[in-house]
């Protein structure tokens, strides 16, 4: 296979990953606005996919740079490393989907990419020097943001709820909700916009790495066609995943007040946009879950379901090492195939 065919194959797989990411995360984008009955499931899906795509034209490509060159040594990145990384991320996403665990596609991608680079360094430099495949780079901040982003969402949602109760303390609940039904259209769009800009950039980072390591680009600069392709893939994934929700569970969601939905979505969008501004890839699932918990915690801390929080923490802890292990195995398998071919 020539470098061009291999690059095309990996780019196609990266876009499939992006599509699956949108599919996986469709619930995050549509559930809140459907639960408040502000939009019908179908309207919510179209609204979310539209803002996923529109976000392509803003916020630059800082997160793409972080994913592409902030975690692994570029000299250790080969097309096989990237392919193994994508296989690790996709396989882990599908396993956790099967097990019903709400894991992060973003963390799976970072783990997979690192696992591929570690396996390459181990096979070329020796097992004891495997960690030379990684760079310290963005790891501390990105690992920190695994906790910071959802906690920020939780705190912001709580503060927004307090502010709203204070501002509208003379309004009746029904009047208050009439305002927030309109405002939630903005917050739902803002959340999908934030989701699109952070998540699609992860795939852009991977595709740009393919182009750099394949010699098709001299410097790490994301081409515009990559930006458009990544946003189109995630928007189509959201449409497809949302379509499934429309036909399965959309109408059975627990009812939520528009003001609660507005606060959760606005807090989550702010937290994700803040991370994007700092060029950090974050789990949009963890952020929206943290924000909804923040809305609930205004009543009592008991409203935070600790069983759910525990499940999420397990998902946080497991995702990066698990995707890295699958990617390392995939790298070894690819190397073996190359050896016997």
């Amino acid at each position, binding site marked *: *296979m*020539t470098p*061009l*065919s291999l690059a*095309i*194959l990996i*780019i*196609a*797989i990266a*876009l*499939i990953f992006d*599509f699956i990411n949108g*599919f*996986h*995360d469709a*619930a995050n984008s549509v*559930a*809140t606005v459907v*639960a408040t009955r502000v939009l019908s499931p179908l309207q919510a899906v179209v609204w979310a996919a539209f803002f996923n795509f529109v976000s392509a034209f803003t916020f630059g490509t800082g997160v793409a740079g972080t994913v592409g060159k902030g975690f692994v040594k570029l000299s250790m990145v080969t097309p096989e490393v990237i392919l193994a990384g994508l296989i690790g991320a996709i396989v882990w996403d599908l396993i*956790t*989907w099967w*097990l*019903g*665990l*709400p894991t992060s596609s973003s963390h799976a991608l970072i783990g997979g990419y690192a696992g591929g680079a570690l396996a390459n360094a181990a096979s070329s430099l020796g097992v004891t020097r495997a960690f030379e495949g990684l760079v310290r780079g963005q790891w501390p901040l990105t690992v920190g943001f695994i906790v910071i982003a959802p906690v920020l969402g939780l705190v912001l949602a709580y503060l927004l709820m*307090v502010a709203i*109760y*204070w501002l509208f*303390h003379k309004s009746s609940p029904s009047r208050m909700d009439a305002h927030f039904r309109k405002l939630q259209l903005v917050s739902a769009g803002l959340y999908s916009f934030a989701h699109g800009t952070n998540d699609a950039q992860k795939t852009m980072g991977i595709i740009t790495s393919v182009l750099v390591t394949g010699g098709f680009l001299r410097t790490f600069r994301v081409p515009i066609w990559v930006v458009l392709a990544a946003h189109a893939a995630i928007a*189509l*994934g959201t449409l*497809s*995943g949302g*379509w*499934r*929700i429309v*036909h*399965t*569970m959309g109408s059975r*969601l*627990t*009812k*939520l*007040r528009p003001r*609660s939905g507005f606060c959760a979505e606005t807090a989550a969008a702010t937290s994700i946009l803040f991370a994007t501004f700092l060029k950090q890839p974050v789990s949009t*699932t963890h952020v*929206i*879950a943290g924000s*909804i*918990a923040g*809305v*609930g915690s*205004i*009543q009592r801390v008991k*409203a*935070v*379901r600790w069983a*759910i929080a525990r*499940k*999420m923490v397990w998902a946080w802890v497991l995702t990066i090492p698990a995707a890295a292990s699958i990617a390392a195995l995939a790298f070894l398998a690819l190397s073996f195939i190359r050896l016997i071919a």
Partner: protein
Amino acid sequence: MSDGALATVLPVGLLLGAVAFAYVLSRSKGEDPKLNLLDSLFRAVSEERSDSRQRPA
């Protein structure tokens, strides 16, 4: 198969595969872990609201 043909067939094949995969997934009736997670959080929020008659702050 030549590399040129492979470079055309692979992405088209993958794209068709992805569309078929998306169709199958979108028609599947299985549980959605993220939707379940969010719905259980919504339930916690609305249960708390119905439990408590007092407004905070």
